[in-house]
């Protein structure tokens, strides 16, 4: 424990950050199982670029319309909301049958990166302004971030609870699911939209590394040891919770970067799961 900084006594300072990490960790790890099984683990990278385009577009609108923080219209053009909108809207692209794979991810990443730089030349602000909107830190959080993360998690889990079997059938065998009358494209949109929502909210709260890490590593660990889909989802969620919670505690205790600590704990869980399987 850090000298003079007891962990539990300082809970009023860190509780929001811990809660945000736990909620985001659980949501990302749950969705991570789908992401890993569908073999689209690089979609988060593309999504962050799509969101960055949203931020640049918001900046452009602000400047073109002369919107300021005082005007009511400014709220509608809030860059973080536009970024979220762009990320969620990209679900329609990623959900296309042939589009979910590596090629689509690569195309989205490259085109959006180029768009950010090209459109960015027309706004007065810098790249760090875009990063400032998109990427958070896992050290401290506000109550509003707890509420936003919890709302995103509830939306994702709620929609999945309703459509679990349909999502599973469509992901496992899209052609057979389509033949059985399921709306496969809509289900894919639901999956990617939930993913984009949770990832955007988590990235804004925790930062890019922990969001990506908590999405992939707990799911990989769970899939090493799980014997069924339900077990995989439950274990991955539990691993996400442990990675986020223990990672935050260790970062506090040993003065380590919070996001990186969470990813390292998730990595250790994966190593443990691999050893357990052997």
């Amino acid at each position, binding site marked *: 424990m850090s000298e003079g900084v007891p962990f539990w006594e*300082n809970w009023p*300072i860190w509780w929001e950050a811990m809660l945000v990490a736990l909620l985001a960790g659980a949501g990302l790890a749950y969705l991570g199982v789908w992401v890993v099984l569908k073999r689209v683990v690089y979609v988060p990278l593309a999504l962050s670029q799509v969101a960055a385009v949203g931020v640049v577009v918001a900046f452009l609108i602000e400047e073109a319309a002369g919107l300021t923080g005082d005007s009511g219209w400014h709220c509608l053009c809030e860059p973080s909301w536009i970024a979220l909108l762009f990320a969620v809207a990209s679900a329609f692209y990623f959900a296309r049958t042939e589009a979910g794979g590596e090629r689509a991810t690569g195309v989205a990443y490259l085109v959006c990166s180029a768009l950010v730089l090209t459109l960015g*030349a027309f706004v007065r*602000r*810098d790249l760090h302004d875009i*990063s400032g909107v998109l990427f958070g*830190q896992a050290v*401290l*959080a506000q109550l509003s971030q707890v509420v936003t993360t919890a709302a995103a998690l509830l939306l994702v889990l709620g929609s999945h609870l309703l459509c679990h079997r349909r999502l599973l059938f469509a992901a496992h065998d899209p052609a057979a699911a389509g033949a059985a009358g399921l709306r496969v494209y809509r289900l894919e949109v639901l999956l990617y939209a939930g993913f984009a929502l949770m990832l955007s909210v988590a990235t804004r709260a925790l930062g890019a590394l922990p969001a990506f890490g908590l999405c992939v590593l707990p799911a990989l660990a769970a899939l090493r040891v799980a014997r069924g889909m339900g077990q995989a989802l439950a274990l991955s969620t539990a691993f996400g919770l442990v990675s986020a919670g223990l990672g935050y505690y260790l970062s506090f205790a040993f003065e380590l970067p919070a996001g990186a600590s969470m990813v390292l704990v998730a990595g250790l869980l994966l190593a443990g799961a691999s050893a357990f399987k052997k």
Partner: protein
Amino acid sequence: MALAPIAAALALLLAPAAAGAALRVVTTLPDFAELARELGGDRVQAEAMVRGSQDPHFVDAKPSFVLALNRADLLVSNGLGLEDGWLPALLRQARNPEVLPGGRGHLDASRAIQARDVPSAVDRSMGDVHAGGNPHYYTSPEALFQVARLLEEKLLELDPEDRAGYAARWRTFEATYRERSAAWRARLAPLQGMPVAVYHRSWDYLLDWAGLTSAGALEPKPGIPPSAAHVTRLLAETRGRGVRQVWQEVYHPTSLSKVFAEKAGARLLVLPSMVGALPGTDHLWTKFDRLVELVAGEPNGP
């Protein structure tokens, strides 16, 4: 990312020296370019490589910079290791011995000031600490005035033909500085002794000049991301000391400072550390006008 810097780079690359300009001056920081324009008038064509909104520790080297350095009569650098990550490579490629360190056309502006926080020894455990001391003296009006004196001497040395013109411009500059500096101090006087928390230790020279005190930095060590424990400790300290303001540059992330300020019951101020860092700070005087206005705006805090 506005088009202005692109245009500036193109001008730097293509334009011949302005009619009548005797010296081509290239500076690392925009504040030094402003000083050169103030002191050199139309005898000087000055361009900066760093934009006010960029982190001067990390600048992407561009071919246009190499060409500008190749043609330059004078390079003004900040020194104290601030540009160590990118300037030496550019100088090697520029093939202009005049502007190399020690050359007649190289001015290390840090020679004008007394550096703060000079470490007795440096190792990696101290983070991105600079062996020569804290390099962010350009946030202080007084330090920039001292740099101006040094620059005036260097310009006269390189362009002695217009001695009278330089002298006249210096008088104007000094008078303006005295007048503005007094106004800024007067504006900040009610805040004397006020403790301020910062993100990166870029503001120590300014705090000294303004008579304010540092309550600590969010970065535990220069360039090292804040940890939860460090921030908690700092928060406890700042609450005890009644910190009302948290300062940071435009190029550092505000996500943590914002929450920190909220929890500390303080106000986060994103201040222009260099000329052009914020809209309306395109001149040396307007940079400090805006800075002082932001700091002194609400002396009693949120």
